[in-house]
């Protein structure tokens, strides 16, 4: 019966689960994180292939603010987890842009200094400048972390201030691509979180990528006395008298816990319950999935004039459509990431890396025979890269091909396999559960489907749910 009861059991060793675990272990709770995979990180992880290290998920950590700026999510997270800022070794972006039109004719440049975007909007959309300022004012004062806010349509709120469809689409594109689980619109609170995270704060990453952040979290969790069981997923949550009474693990053994915090998503958690809550799950399952291509070069992107922009959000069509792809991949819009273009100071990435993310359709990838799957991957890889390159200075195909060392690609199928997210829906369920409560009194959600977005958001989600449901509860928790 060794180790079969915990004060708190956490399902999933992603950013949110690890952050919740650190809080709980720090304050003396006996806590265990159960993770089905052998690697921690969840949606933001890393892997090695043929001796080369890759990041997956994370283009950039959003919510970056310079040292000394207080009262923002990054500062709160560092304090709550007792992490020294230097431990994350964050290097800020150089600049990014939103590039629209078949050849990227309309451009809004932005950096970690909001004044740059502000000036771009004023210069390129003078008639919208007043509305833009009002919208920014509203975003700055909106209580986006309220756990009980009434849902509002972001389209509707933004529409009150901005009337130009091109500017509207250019604002929504990055905000949606970096976190919206909803098609075409998003809840205004979610919009505010992302707007602040991307534009009012900014982008950064450690030179060595997301593994640095995960390593810090793992070390804190271990030092605080937390337990972690890898390759040990939770197969079922057994309900008794309105409580999560027992957890059945993948190996068939059972554990009990005073509280259960699930970071695996709302529908995924509902389906784990015994009896399964299939109807609730099906009514709130995400449909948005993605592909991402990675090309590795033996040249630095700057040699081709690709050395300025860190992230480029692109769209070639008259309107930007953020919705499930009709074909396997929707290459009309997407996100380019050139990780070499963070300001790493004296350091630099040894190889050139070029990543492209586009919306994709899970169903059209899920059930393909292996041979077809591989062939389609190859075909869409080429298509996505070609589409994205329209928004970068032109380089000869032959030059790129000669410099290319290797490539990799994930599809909706890869996402489902490694994260368990139904439909390969990276950003989870369209309706978020802000207070984290479920139908069971001791089962709570954290992470993607609680609804604080981005990786800083994910960590704050774990922190908030641990605080709110466990640590601030009755003295004995």
């Amino acid at each position, binding site marked *: 019966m060794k180790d079969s009861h915990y004060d708190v059991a956490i399902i999933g060793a992603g950013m949110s689960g690890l952050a919740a675990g650190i809080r709980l272990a*720090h*304050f*003396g709770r006996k806590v265990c994180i159960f993770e089905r995979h052998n690697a921690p990180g969840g949606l933001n992880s890393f892997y090695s292939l043929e001796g080369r290290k890759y990041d997956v998920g994370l283009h950039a950590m959003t919510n970056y603010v310079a*040292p*000394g700026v*207080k*009262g923002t999510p990054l*500062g*709160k997270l*560092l*304090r*709550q987890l*007792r992490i*020294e*800022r230097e431990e994350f070794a964050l290097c800020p972006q150089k600049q990014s842009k939103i590039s629209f039109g078949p050849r990227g004719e309309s451009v809004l440049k932005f950096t970690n200094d909001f004044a740059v975007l502000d000036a771009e909007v004023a210069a390129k959309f003078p008639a919208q400048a007043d509305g833009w300022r009002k919208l920014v004012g509203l975003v700055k004062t909106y209580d986006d972390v309220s756990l009980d806010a009434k849902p509002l349509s972001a389209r509707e709120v933004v529409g009150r201030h901005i009337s130009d469809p091109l500017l509207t689409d250019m604002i929504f594109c990055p905000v949606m691509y970096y976190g919206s689980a909803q098609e075409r619109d998003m809840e205004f609170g979610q919009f505010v979180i992302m707007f602040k995270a991307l534009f009012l704060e900014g982008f950064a990453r450690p030179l060595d990528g997301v593994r640095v952040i995960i390593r810090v979290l793992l070390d804190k969790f271990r030092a605080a006395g937390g337990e972690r069981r890898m390759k040990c997923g939770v197969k079922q949550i057994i309900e008794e008298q309105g409580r999560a009474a027992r957890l059945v693990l993948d190996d068939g053994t059972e554990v009990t816990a005073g509280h259960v915090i699930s970071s695996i998503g709302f529908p995924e958690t509902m389906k784990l319950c015994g009896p399964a809550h299939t109807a609730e799950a099906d009514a709130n399952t995400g449909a948005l999935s993605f592909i991402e291509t990675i090309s590795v070069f033996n040249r630095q992107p700057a040699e081709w004039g690709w050395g300025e922009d860190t992230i480029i959000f692109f769209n070639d069509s008259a309107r930007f459509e953020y919705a499930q792809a009709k074909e396997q991949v929707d290459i009309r819009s997407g996100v380019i990431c050139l990780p070499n273009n963070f300001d790493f100071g004296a350091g630099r990435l040894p190889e050139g890396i070029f990543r492209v993310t586009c919306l994709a359709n899970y169903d059209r990838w899920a059930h393909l025979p292996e041979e077809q799957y591989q062939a389609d991957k190859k075909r869409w890889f080429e298509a996505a890269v070609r589409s994205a390159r329209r928004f970068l200075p032109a380089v000869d195909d032959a030059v790129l091909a000669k410099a290319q060392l290797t490539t990799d690609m994930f599809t909706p199928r890869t996402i489902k396999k490694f994260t368990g997210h139904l439909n390969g829906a990276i950003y989870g369920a369209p309706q978020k559960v802000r207070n984290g409560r479920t139908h069971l009194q001791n089962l709570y959600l954290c992470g993607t489907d609680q609804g604080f977005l981005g990786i800083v958001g994910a960590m704050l989600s774990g922190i908030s749910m641990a*605080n709110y449901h466990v*640590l*601030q509860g009755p*003295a004995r928790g």
Partner: protein
Amino acid sequence: MTKDDCKKLVIDIISDIAPDEDLSAIKPEIRLRDQLQLDSMDFLDIVMELRKRHGIEVPEADYAHLASLESCAEYLTPKFATKA
């Protein structure tokens, strides 16, 4: 335990919670919130660290007593005394 000892323990806690704050010139009579950037999450952490490190319970109704260093000492010193 003197009130000064008590203040020191509170400062120790704050310096761990908010290492990015300068605590060298805190004025004991002035509200902590007015001198430092501390939010409700931080105050909650002060309460929880008091419980964790010193076994001292601060019920929610008494949180106002933690407003300044002076009021902290006033409120917490007797609690440390009964514990000892």
